[in-house]
């Protein structure tokens, strides 16, 4: 049953892709494939729900041999536990909604069929990643979603910015993937398998075999695997691709770059939870925390509606990482699901807004092809200019024009900002904060409280910039009257998904996460024995709180504390009980502050954002320039290019191009040019030199042949004498 359901889930989108993908290549000769793709997705969704009932504790993976070698076997298989099912539901749900949304959004695009083919392929890959029971399968899905991301970001490849962005996305994530692959190699070398679950799986072996002496390499392996997540989930310092990825169509951003693919990094990290050592956890926590804060600060100053959301996504993903790094397995995954819905909603909402503005363009140009419309993006240097239909400074007052969009987006914003109790985001965020604080209390060093502070600040800033977005977009006076006049509410195909997602932004899914029998954090006992105890409260609170969370705060608190105490008689672990209370109070406060200031700045305008920006110019600049990450990458490049141009004057022409072409150019222009020259000059040159010398010697030998017979005779006789003398000496 499980296998067949999963197979259906996987095959539906795959079949949709295979059939329509090929036809799409051959230029849409098949009518209404968008419906079929969508239906395939909906079937998968239904099956996912059916799977909910199939979850059993401690499931065994269902595997087949994929590569069997003489000694080793690589199997492929499904592993179905509660987390898998939840992820399946999230993915199929969001994917289905995005499919529906796209029918409206992408309508009229010349490559409309292809878009659905890509979406189907993506859904398949993502689902494959989710259900895989082994690292190899995860890696395969991992790379395939990367491919889809590449194809979809570059969907309007006529735009140079899109072409650049998709390349950047693929390459940047690949850097992380390589780390992940190395990590896999390390695990494989140790355990001779890449399967995670089951008898001979990595986790079982790790639990059975590893001793404290193995912690160092295991930490390295863990961090390396996490590298994959850094790339995929756009964590620092590999986060720069995600904002650029907004060049893709907005539904893509919603599906891939908000809800699912980028979350796959979190999912992976969570999956690897049983082998994360303390060190690797710490690394994960800090990377996540810093990413959360930095991305949030950058988001404050963006004007491009999609980029605000992009940085917000990065920030939220950092949050999740932080949670998992801090050991709050359930909290991290919980936030993943809630975030998937409200962030998808935000993106789709922004898509709706953009779409409204598109319509205006349509009217203007009589040009009905998106592709052409997007060509104006050409002259943009990556991210430096904002397309007018995405610029929040052109918006304002849209709430009347687009009520549904406004309301749904507002719900999502409230959710992400952590407005208490009735929004899902509050609960998941609160759990993370509590987990981090609790963890910080357990760590021996005080320094790690900084993680909690970071998390808290990020929460506040998130509320601030999200409301900034809402205020700038939907409130106030229209800033661009012409555009405003043309704007309109989106068609049903787009608003329905918005509404569904809005419903999902209330804590409806939370039941799953609060059922302690349903989601259990895997143990890490052998790996960090000293601290493992603190993990149980997470599950305990999760479990007990589940039933209560729908009803009210106080019960939840109570349960949390109870659970904590119930499990741990040990005095050292008392901290987490109060931790939850503290965390919740503080989170409510910072969310309120964020919203309040946002209101002051962008609605009441009692405070001027500009004057603050002027006052804190350096900080503002730092934010505005995205902490100079792109500049840093490009700057290193330029320095090296200058050095290179001195070195290889003849390559001057490529310098200018090189600057534009981003990080890849560093390697291309410097290393590769050098290597290329080396290849031509040195390696080949050496060979040619040998040939020249041979030739020259040939010329010399030839010159002895003077044509004068007496020279010849001399050679003969001298030769005789020499031969005799030489051999006499021998």
């Amino acid at each position, binding site marked *: 049953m499980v296998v067949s359901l999963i197979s259906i889930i996987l095959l539906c989108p795959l079949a949709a892709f295979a059939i329509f993908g090929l036809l799409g290549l051959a230029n849409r000769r098949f009518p209404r494939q968008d419906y079929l793709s969508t239906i395939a997705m909906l079937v998968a969704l239904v099956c996912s729900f059916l799977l909910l009932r199939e979850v059993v504790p401690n499931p065994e993976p269902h595997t087949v041999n994929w590569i069997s070698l003489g000694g080793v076997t690589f199997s492929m298989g499904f592993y179905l536990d509660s987390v898998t099912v939840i992820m399946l539901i999230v993915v199929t749900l969001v994917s289905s909604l995005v499919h529906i949304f796209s029918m409206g959004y992408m309508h009229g695009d010349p490559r409309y069929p292809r878009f659905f083919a890509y979406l189907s392929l993506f859904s398949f890959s993502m689902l494959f990643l989710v259900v895989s029971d082994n690292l190899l399968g995860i890696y395969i899905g991992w790379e395939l979603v990367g491919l889809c991301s590449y194809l979809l970001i570059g969907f309007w490849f006529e735009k140079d910015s899109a072409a650049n962005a998709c390349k950047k996305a693929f390459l940047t994530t690949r850097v992380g993937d390589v780390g992940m692959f190395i990590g896999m190699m390390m695990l494989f070398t140790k355990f001779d398998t890449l399967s995670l679950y089951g008898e001979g799986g990595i986790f079982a072996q790790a639990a059975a075999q590893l001793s404290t002496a193995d912690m160092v390499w295991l930490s390295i392996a863990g961090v390396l695997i996490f590298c994959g997540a850094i790339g995929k989930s756009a964590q620092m310092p590999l986060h720069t691709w995600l904002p650029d990825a907004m060049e893709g169509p907005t539904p893509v951003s919603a599906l891939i770059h908000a809800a699912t693919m980028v979350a796959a990094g979190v999912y992976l990290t969570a999956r690897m939870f049983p082998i994360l050592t303390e060190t690797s956890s710490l690394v994960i926590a800090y990377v996540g925390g810093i990413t959360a804060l930095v991305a949030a600060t950058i988001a404050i100053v963006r004007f491009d509606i999609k980029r605000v959301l992009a940085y917000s996504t990065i920030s939220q993903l950092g949050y999740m990482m932080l949670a998992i790094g801090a050991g709050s397995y359930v909290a991290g995954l919980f936030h993943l699901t809630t975030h998937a819905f409200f962030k998808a909603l935000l993106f789709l909402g922004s898509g709706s807004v953009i779409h409204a503005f598109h319509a205006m363009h349509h009217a203007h140009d009589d040009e009905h092809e998106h592709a052409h419309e997007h060509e104006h993006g050409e002259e943009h240097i990556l991210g430096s200019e904002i397309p007018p239909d995405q610029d929040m400074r052109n918006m304002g007052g849209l709430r009347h024009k687009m009520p549904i969009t406004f309301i749904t987006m507002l719900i999502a914003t409230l959710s992400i900002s952590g407005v208490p109790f009735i929004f899902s985001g509050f609960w998941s965020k609160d759990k993370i904060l509590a987990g981090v604080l609790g963890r910080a209390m357990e760590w021996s060093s005080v320094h790690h409280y900084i993680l909690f502070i970071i998390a808290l600040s990020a929460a506040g800033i998130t509320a601030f910039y999200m409301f900034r977005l809402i205020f700038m977009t939907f409130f106030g006076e229209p800033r661009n009257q012409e555009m405003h006049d043309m704007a309109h509410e989106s068609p049903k195909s787009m608003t329905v998904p918005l509404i569904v997602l809005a419903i999902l932004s209330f804590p409806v899914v939370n039941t799953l996460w609060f059922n302690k029998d349903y989601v259990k954090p895997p143990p890490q006992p052998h790996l960090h024995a000293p601290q493992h105890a603190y993990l149980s409260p997470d599950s305990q609170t999760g479990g007990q709180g589940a039933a209560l969370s729908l009803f009210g705060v106080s019960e939840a608190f109570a349960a949390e504390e109870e659970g904590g105490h119930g499990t741990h008689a040990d005095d050292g672990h008392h901290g987490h009980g109060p931790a939850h209370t503290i965390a919740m109070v503080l989170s409510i406060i910072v969310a309120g502050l964020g919203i309040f200031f946002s209101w002051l700045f962008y609605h009441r305008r009692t405070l001027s954002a500009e004057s603050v920006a002027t006052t804190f110019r350096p900080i503002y600049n730092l934010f505005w320039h995205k902490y100079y990450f792109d500049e840093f990458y490009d700057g290193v490049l330029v320095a090296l290019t200058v050095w290179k141009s001195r070195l290889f004057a003849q390559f001057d022409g490529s310098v200018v191009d090189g600057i534009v072409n981003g990080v890849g150019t560093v390697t291309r222009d410097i290393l590769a040019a050098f290597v290329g020259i080396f290849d031509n000059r040195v390696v080949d040159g050496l060979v040619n030199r040998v040939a020249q010398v041979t030739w020259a010697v*040939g*010329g010399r030998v030839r010159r002895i042949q003077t044509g004068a017979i007496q020279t010849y005779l001399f050679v*003969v006789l001298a030769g*005789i004498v020499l031969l005799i003398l030489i051999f006499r000496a021998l």
Partner: protein
Amino acid sequence: MESLKNIESLLYFSPEILLVIFAVAVVLLDLVVKDRESVAVAYLSLVGCFCTFAAVLFTHFSFGDEGPVSLFLGMIQLDAFSSFFKVLLLLATAATILFSLRSEELDARLKGEYYALLLAITLGMFLMASSTNLLMIFISLETVSLTSYILAGFLTHSPRSSEAAFKYITYGAVASGTMLFGLSLLFGMAGTGDLAQISGRLTELLAAGEIAPLAVLIAITFVLAGVGYKIASVPFHMWSPDVYEGAPIPITAFLSVASKSAGFALFIRFFYAGFGSTELMQAVDWPFMLAIVSALTMTVGNLAALPQQNVKRLLAYSSIAHGGYLLMGGVLLTSQGIGAILFYLVVYLFMNLGAFYVVVLIANEVGSEMVEGYRGLSSRAPLVAWAMVIFLVSLAGIPPFAGFFGKWLLFTAVLEQGYYWLALVGLLNSVVSLYYYARIVKAMFLEDAGEETDSVSFSTGTFALLSVFVIPTIFIGFLNIFYTFSNISVSVMPMQ
């Protein structure tokens, strides 16, 4: 081994006698035939070759098959080794006669003398292959040399031909004079002219301290000068490019194949019968000397061939290089080494003569001996061009052509004796050689002919003759019989 008396030997000597008879007959026929265009003389000499061939087979299978027979009181020996060379030489002579028929260089009025001389030189080479006495060795060598000088200078109206003859004779006279001096020293030490006894005597005397190793060394080196000049090994090779370039093409072909083969026959017999004893080699490490000479020969030949523009001259250097490869086999005192030389000579005969035949054809039709003259040949005369490719590639020693198998045998023999450096030198040389062979191929295939693009047509006879060379060049290596043949032929040599 008892030597046969003079009269008893005559029957065994029938091939040589036939050659003389036909040589005289050719001259006489030439006197009778007035028609300048007549080819009767050439065909008579071909018939002569054929009769001689039959006689060689007859003598071999009647008498020589069972073991060596010493003739004329020890002057020459009839054995498988000499029979092998006689067949080889007759093939070369017959081919040269056919070439000469095609060649437009030669003066039609002098053809009687020309073919007679060819038969005479073949006689000399027969004797070179079978002599077992110092005097006979020298006389046969001189017969071949003198006739070669004349043939090289046969084009009386060509300064190049005269120059070739002049250089050839000057060089040859000095070399053979030096050799004769060496022979006199050998005679003086051994007290006999019989090759079979020399080795033993020298060994005894050396052991007794009666003669200094230096004396043997000088004698060997002087002898080497004479032999080396015949096989064009460094440093005795310098005549050959000039002579090959100046001589008529058929003669060049003949010299590069037949003369070299005969030289090797003499060399092998002389060195193995005369200097082959272990003690002698301890006193004078002549195999090592040969190894050095061999390495130098192929290197110099190949390097100097690189910049050549004249195909004849290029092939001259190439044949020097091949002399070097062949000498590798001579370095070793094993039957494999000698067998390899013999086998390679067979292969070399076909491929080198084939290449020269193409040169003859091109010289006739295109009027050029230069590499440029071969441009665009692939479109003008594709079959000839492909045949040339096969010859050249075989010369370069690339499978699956016979040249590879020949080199294979040589290298195997060399490596077996642990001369790794020599084998390596040889192999690297064959890589270098590919380069200049490829230049001709390049001209034929990769370059355009320029204005002249008409296809060149050849007669069926031409193609037939060409295929006579092409087919063996392709297939010899695949057939067992040639290996067996060459191995049997060396079995008579006194080996270690």
